[in-house]
């Protein structure tokens, strides 16, 4: 279908939706979503069960202030076009231009393993390189996955993050729309990162994408997700669920750069089930949003499983990033490393929060947490809230955290070399986040460095 041709490089596209559910949350809305998607009975049931759990559960008593969210003030489903575009050229022009503005590397997309772009609630563009298809790799929207591979979806959906896990997992399970379904057959190595872009558009629009990744034995995948959003005057809600199954000897890296506009509540549940000698890596960057609560988790369920979490948060005026990670060591010889870095400035607040548990019998397990926070001015705040529960003695557990300012000596040295204070601070911050940036695909590293520089530039002029 034709998109509106009048898009200018402003922040908001004219709304042009084929179907928009009524505002607010009710069983009627859930019914509508399930009906429009023409879903099997079990998924419909799951949605209704999740809705009841959502209604029963209270908001978390800890973490960021969520008291101002009015759940009846959002649209829970909008579909931007009534079919999925097969080729880039078929994607409505306005939407294509929006991605250009966001810097989705169109010219580079043939290099990418596939591009899934979520605009509003549904995946509207998807491509997968031929050789990946030949290898049996499945990369579809969650809806397509449900239609084309119902058995795999039914087997894993809601098993890693059950609807009853928390209020927002229940919400997502009730009204989910869009997101990706990825299946990597045994022994298959996906050489290039799979990428997905998400963005919120309509005012009051909640976005509830649902992603399921199944990596069979000995497979390898790097999945990349990035978010940017235009700014609106009233608060918006984003609540995703990501489930990852990493089977024996497989390795999955999941990279997120979250840059929602500064009025978005970003409340996300991400968790991986990690099997024998398998590795799960979460690389989680949070730069945007008004409030983020997100703790990517690795449940190390079989011998030798490993989890790594790299968390980077940036909080400026009006922002509260409550992020970190969670690791459960449920089997012997499991290991985990959490590295968290945060930058607070302009009155922003970062709270590192983590939960680390070693179950009885998880002998020979090792866990290490390193947490560094940088505060750039006297208006900002930084917290560290870890819980470290050890129920087995044959383990090695260490945790360390520091909070500090940019060193006077560093600044003095850089300024003596002719840099302005702003440039010097920017350089120190770039050095501080470098260990995380290094792990990103090149275009993301460039984008992240640019974002930080842009953000920092705002104050130091």
């Amino acid at each position, binding site marked *: 279908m034709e998109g509106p041709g009048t898009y200018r490089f402003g922040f908001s596209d004219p709304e042009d939706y084929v179907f928009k559910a009524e505002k607010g949350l009710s069983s009627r809305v859930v019914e509508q979503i399930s009906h429009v998607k023409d879903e099997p009975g079990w998924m419909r049931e799951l949605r209704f069960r999740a809705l009841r759990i959502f209604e029963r559960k209270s908001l978390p008593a800890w973490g960021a202030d969520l008291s101002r969210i009015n759940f009846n003030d959002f649209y829970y489903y909008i579909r931007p076009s009534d079919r999925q575009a097969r080729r880039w050229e078929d994607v409505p022009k306005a939407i294509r231009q929006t991605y250009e503005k966001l810097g989705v590397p169109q010219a580079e997309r043939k290099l990418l393993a596939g591009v899934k772009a979520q605009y509003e609630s549904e995946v509207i563009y998807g491509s997968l390189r031929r050789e990946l298809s030949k290898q049996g790799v499945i990369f579809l929207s969650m809806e397509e996955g449900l239609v084309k591979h119902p058995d795999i979806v039914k087997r894993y959906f809601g098993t890693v993050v059950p609807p009853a896990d928390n209020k927002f997992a229940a919400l997502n399970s009730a009204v989910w729309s869009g997101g990706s379904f990825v299946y990597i057959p045994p022994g298959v190595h996906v050489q290039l990162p799979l990428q997905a872009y998400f963005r919120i558009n309509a005012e009051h629009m909640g976005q509830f994408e649902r992603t399921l990744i199944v990596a069979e034995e000995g497979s390898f995948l790097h999945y990349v997700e990035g978010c940017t959003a235009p700014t609106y005057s009233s608060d918006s809600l984003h609540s995703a669920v990501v489930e990852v199954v990493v089977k024996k000897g497989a390795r999955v890296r999941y990279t997120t750069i979250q840059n929602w506009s500064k009025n978005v509540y970003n409340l996300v549940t991400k968790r991986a089930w990690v099997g024998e000698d398998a590795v799960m890596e979460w690389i989680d960057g949070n730069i945007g949003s008004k409030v983020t609560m997100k703790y990517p988790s690795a449940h190390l369920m079989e011998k030798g499983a490993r989890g790594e979490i790299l968390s980077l948060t940036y909080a400026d005026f009006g922002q509260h990033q409550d992020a970190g990670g969670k690791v459960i060591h449920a089997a012997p010889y499991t290991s985990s490393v959490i590295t968290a870095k945060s930058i607070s400035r302009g009155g922003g607040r970062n709270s590192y929060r983590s939960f680390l548990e070693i179950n009885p019998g998880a002998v020979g397990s090792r866990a290490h947490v390193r947490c560094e926070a940088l505060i750039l001015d*006297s208006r900002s705040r930084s917290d560290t809230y870890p819980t470290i529960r050890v129920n087995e003695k044959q383990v090695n557990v260490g945790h360390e955290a520091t909070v500090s300012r940019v060193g006077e000596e560093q600044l003095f040295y850089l300024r003596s070399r002719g840099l302005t204070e702003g440039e010097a601070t920017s350089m120190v911050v770039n050095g501080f986040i470098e260990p995380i940036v290094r792990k990103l695909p090149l275009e993301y590293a460039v984008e992240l460095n640019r974002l930080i520089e842009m953000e920092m530039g705002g104050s130091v002029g």
Partner: protein
Amino acid sequence: MIFIFIAGSKSEEVKISLNKEGKREELMVIFAGRGNDVIDINLAFIHEAPATQGRIIVRGVLRDQSSAKIKGLIRINKGARESEGFLEQRTLLVGERSKVENLPYLEIENHDVKASHAVTVGAVNQEQMFYLRSRGLSEKEALALLIEGFLGQAVAGERGNQVGSKLEEVKAYALG
């Protein structure tokens, strides 16, 4: 310097306010649990004035199925510039079913400060154990020596006085 010695089940709460410019305080907590002991330690240093310095050291040994929960907060308020806070929590798990939960918290509202914490949990170092046993010590003797070293390190130089004798009591409880 404030010392707290805990031998057996106990709930201990300490909240210290560093409310005078330049005030310094150090707190040392040594604990030992055995049998079904449950130890609950809740410590907080609140830096309210500029240039205050706080230091908390917690060390403990848990045997059998004893357990401990250790919460330690360093809070540096907005006005407490140039302050420094440090917290260390180290637990030695000796019992097959002993367990520990650590909650080291930092709440920092000023950029011109230094604050840090460190936590370690683990069993007795097997290499050290092996070394001592190769020198002819029984497993029990070697363990006693290692526990003594672990707890004693924190209060080195306090032997022979009142603090020293309290430490002996905790050690005796841990080994008894």
